[in-house]
């Protein structure tokens, strides 16, 4: 009887199977002893080596280690929770398949974020989101000696305004700012992640900050 129900309604079987796997994964994630023993002591390279040697918990550890960073980048890019979760998930699935070809000497985080950024670019193409808006006119930001209107803002006000205005930046600018400041990456790591020359990364970050500054000054 149960077999015929499963045959007639495969979606029920799939739902049960998926729920079971999620419950198992949650249980694995909640293993404090295992987490304590593995996470702080093993480097990314060691976890990758263990994963390649067939230990399924090693990649789970990497997922736990980098979910926040990957989600931070994908969310800042898409500004959509569901899309960011999908892209984060897809990033790890691609990494799973690509890890056997990865050079063990390369740091993992820029590599994962590179996959995430590439997926974000694909998403932007599919949804016709413009990666970069009109470039900020550098001349408009050339110094004058007048009193800066932002000077009068308190640190807290400035921080809140920066957060609000960041969302108005084009996706690529939000991404370079996120990588640099939120993920604390070097220019070299950013270049790897964005697949851009080092100087282009510097230019993009400079333009992103200029555009942000422009937006901040618009309200004054």
């Amino acid at each position, binding site marked *: 009887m149960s077999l015929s129900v499963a045959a007639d309604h495969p979606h029920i079987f799939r739902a049960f199977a998926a729920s079971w796997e999620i419950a198992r994964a949650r249980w694995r994630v909640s293993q404090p002893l295992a987490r304590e023993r593995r996470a702080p002591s093993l480097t990314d390279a060691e976890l990758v080596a263990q994963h390649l040697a067939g230990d399924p918990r090693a990649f789970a550890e990497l997922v736990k280690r980098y979910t926040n960073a990957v989600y931070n980048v994908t969310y800042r890019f898409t500004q959509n929770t569901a899309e960011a979760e999908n892209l984060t998930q897809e990033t790890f699935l691609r990494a799973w398949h690509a890890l056997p070809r990865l050079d063990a000497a390369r740091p993992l985080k820029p590599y994962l974020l590179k996959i995430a950024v590439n997926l974000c670019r694909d998403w932007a193409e599919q949804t016709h989101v413009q990666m970069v808006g009109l470039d900020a006119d550098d001349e408009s930001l050339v110094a004058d000696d007048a009193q800066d209107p932002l000077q009068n803002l308190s640190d807290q006000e*400035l921080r809140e305004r920066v957060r609000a205005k960041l969302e108005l930046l084009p996706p690529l600018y939000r991404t370079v700012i996120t990588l640099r400041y939120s993920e604390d990456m070097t220019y070299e790591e950013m270049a790897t992640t964005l697949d851009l020359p080092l100087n282009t990364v510097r230019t993009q970050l400079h333009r992103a900050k200029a555009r942000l500054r422009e937006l901040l000054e618009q309200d004054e």
Partner: protein
Amino acid sequence: MKYHNRSVEQRVEDALRDMPRVAPAADLSARIIARLPHHATHAHRRTLGAVTLLAALLGLALAYQTAFDLHANGALDLLSYYATQPAIVMTYPYEAFAALAQAIPWLTVLLTGSVLCLALVLVYRLTADARFEFLHRA
């Protein structure tokens, strides 16, 4: 190009640095892990495949040995006899089952069952990849 006010630029940079990460849902990692294909590397799969094959072959050999022992001990004849003469089982059930129990090679049966179960578990693990891809597509 330099901003016209260095201190404001510095404050904007500090504000960007202080900006917290956007936190994902608490169970996102668990959901991602659940959707990973649970196979490991090719080397691992090869080892798993070889062990599965060995377990299956050993299980078959033990099953053959069990059948042989059942036949040699007269258990099969006894079963056949009980099937044709059910009145004996009805009249002397304890004696009938005791005779059957004596004719069964329990150790071999237990060993065979264990090895076949192990082979089944290994097959389940070996096919996990295909099952996860099926679920992922769904």
